[in-house]
C-alpha cells in the first residue's frame, strides 16, 4: 500500500475505530430493547366472557390486556341510527357491519380506550352520559362517539378500536 497515500497505520486506525463503533451500537440495542413490553406482558392472553345477562341497551366493561373492553348490546334504534349515517362523512369511515360479527350486529365490542390520549370514555356503565350521538363520551378532552363507537366530534382521530374476538357460543365471546 505504500506509495498510494494510504498507510498501513491509517487502515488499522479506521478498521479499529469502526469495529469499536459497531460494537458500541450493538451494545445499545439491548439497552433500548429492554424497555419494550416484556414476554409476560406480550403473552397473548385471551379472555372468555359470558354475555347472556346483557340486555339490549346495556353494556359491560371487561378487561383484556389490562385494558377495558366495552361489550354492548345495541337496541334496534341504536343500530338504525348507526346505519343512518353517511359513512363518507365520517372522520374514520366504517359501517357498523364492518365493526361487528355478521349476524350479530347488535354486539358492539370495542376497546374502552379513547383513541385520543387513552382515557376510558363514559357510556358503558349504568347511568353514565353517552354524549350527543348516543354512544360514548370521553370526559378528558371531550371526544364524542356514536352508537357504532365511531368518532364524531372532538380531538380523537379514530373510532374506538375493535379487538380481535369471536363468539364461542351464542352466550360466550372470546376476546384475543
Amino acid at each position, binding site marked *: 500500500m505504500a506509495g498510494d497515500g494510504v498507510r498501513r497505520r491509517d487502515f488499522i486506525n479506521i478498521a479499529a475505530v469502526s469495529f469499536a463503533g459497531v460494537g458500541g451500537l450493538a451494545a445499545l440495542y439491548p439497552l433500548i430493547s429492554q424497555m*419494550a413490553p416484556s414476554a409476560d406482558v406480550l403473552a397473548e392472553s385471551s379472555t372468555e366472557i359470558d354475555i347472556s345477562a346483557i340486555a339490549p341497551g346495556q353494556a359491560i366493561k371487561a378487561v383484556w390486556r389490562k385494558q377495558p373492553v366495552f361489550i354492548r348490546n345495541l337496541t334496534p334504534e341504536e343500530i338504525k341510527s348507526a346505519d343512518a349515517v353517511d359513512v363518507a362523512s365520517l372522520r374514520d369511515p366504517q359501517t357498523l357491519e364492518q365493526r361487528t360479527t355478521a349476524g350479530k350486529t347488535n354486539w358492539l365490542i370495542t376497546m374502552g380506550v379513547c383513541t385520543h*390520549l387513552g*382515557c376510558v370514555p363514559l357510556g358503558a356503565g349504568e347511568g353514565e352520559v353517552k354524549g350527543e350521538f348516543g354512544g360514548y363520551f370521553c370526559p378528558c*378532552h*371531550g371526544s364524542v362517539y356514536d352508537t357504532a363507537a365511531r368518532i364524531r366530534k372532538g*380531538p380523537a*382521530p379514530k373510532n374506538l378500536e375493535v379487538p380481535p374476538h369471536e363468539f364461542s357460543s351464542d352466550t360466550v365471546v372470546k376476546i384475543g
Partner: protein
Amino acid sequence: MSFPWANEYKPSHPLMQWIDEKLPLPRFVYNAVGAGYPVPRNLNYMWNFGVLAGFALVLQIVTGVVLAMHYAANAGVAFDSVEHIMRDVNWGWMLRYAHANGASMFFIVVYTHIFRGFFYSSYKAPREMIWLLGVVIFLLMMATAFMGYVLPWGQMSFWGAKVITGLFSAIPLVGPPLQEWLLGGFAPDNAALNRFFSLHFLLPFVILGVIILHVWALHIPGSSNPTGVEVKQESDTVPFHPYYTAKDGFGLGIFLMVYCALVFFAPNLLGHPDNYIPANPLSTPAHIVPEWYFWPFYAILRAFTSDFLIIPAKLMGVLAMFSAILVWFFLPWLDTSPVRSGHYRPLFRKFFYALVIDVLVLGYCGGAPAEEPYVMISQIASMYYFLHFLVILPIVSSIETPQPLPFSITEAVLGKDEHATLAPATPPSAPAVA
C-alpha cells in the same frame, strides 16, 4: 472570573494553600459564588430567583433521597407505601409534603426566573447559551416532575401517565409502538412505574449537571442587570460575596416562609384530591388535570379540537404544546432590538404584560374542565401566545423607539452627578445611599 478587577483567591491558611495546589476547588467556588465574582451593583430582587431555583433543586434531592428509602416502586404496593410514609414513617408526612410542595415552589421560582428573562431580554447576546441551557433545564424539570407525580400511583398518577405517554402516539407511523416502548406495555403498569422511578431518581442529577453548564456560561459575560447596560468599569460591580450572598439570604428567608406555610398549613392546596384514590385502570376520573404548573401547556394541547388541513387535531395539539416551549429556543433571534431591558422599551413592555396575562388565562383554562367557554378561550389565548413570539416580538423590535439608556450602571445608580465616582480606582464599596 470575567473582569480584570475581580478579587483573586489568596488562601492564607497553609492547609488551604496545600489544597489549592492539588485541587483548586475552593478557588473555583470563590470565583463562582464568592468574593471573586464581580456582579453589577444594581441587581433587583428579580435576580434572586436563580439561586432560589438551585436551592429548590437541592431541597428536592435531599427530600427525594430519603423518600426513596421508604417508597416501593411496584404497582401492587406503591400507593400503600406512600400511605405508609404518610402514617408510619417518622416525619414521613413532613418529608412527603416537603417534596410535593417543593416541586411546586421549584416551578414558581423557575417561572419567575424565566419571566425575568423575558422582561429584561436576558436571552440576548452574549447570553444566548445561558438561555438555551435554561430552556433545556426547564424541559428536564417538566419530565422529572411528571414522572414523580406518577409514583404515588393514585388515579391522577395513572391517568396522567396514560394521557402524557398518549401524546407520543400522535406521531405518525412510529407513534403507537413508541408509546408501547415508553410504557413497556399497553397501558401503564409495573414496567412503567419502575422505569419512571429509575428516571425520576436520575434526572435531577442530570439537571444538576446542566445547571453547572448554565452557571459556567453565565460567568463568561457575567450577570446582566435591570438597565441592560453592560458592565464598563469597576465601579459598576460589587463582589458576589458578601453583597449578593446577603441579598440572596434574605430572599431565601422569604422563600422559606412561603414554603413552610404551604407544607405545614396547606399541604394539599396545590394537589388534587383524586390522587388519594388508588389507580384504577378501568375508570377515568371525571375531570383529569395535570399538576398546576403544566396547566398553560395543557390548555394549548386541548385547544385543538378539529383537524387542521391534513394534520389531525390530535397531532396538532401535541405539536402546539411542545412548540410552546420550543419557541423559547429561538427567542434570542426573534427579538432583534439592540436594547435589552423592558424599562427602556415602552411598547415591548406593554406586550410583555399582555403575555403574562395570556399565560395566566391559559393556566386557568388548563385547570378547568374541557367545555365551553374554556375551550374557546384557550383557542384565542393559544393563538395570542404564538402571535406574541412569532409576530409581535419581531415587529415591536423593529418599529419601537427605545428610551435613552444611562451611560453606565454607576450612572444609573448614582445619577449624572459630577461627584459620582467613576474613576477606575474606586474600591467596590457599598452602594451609596442617595
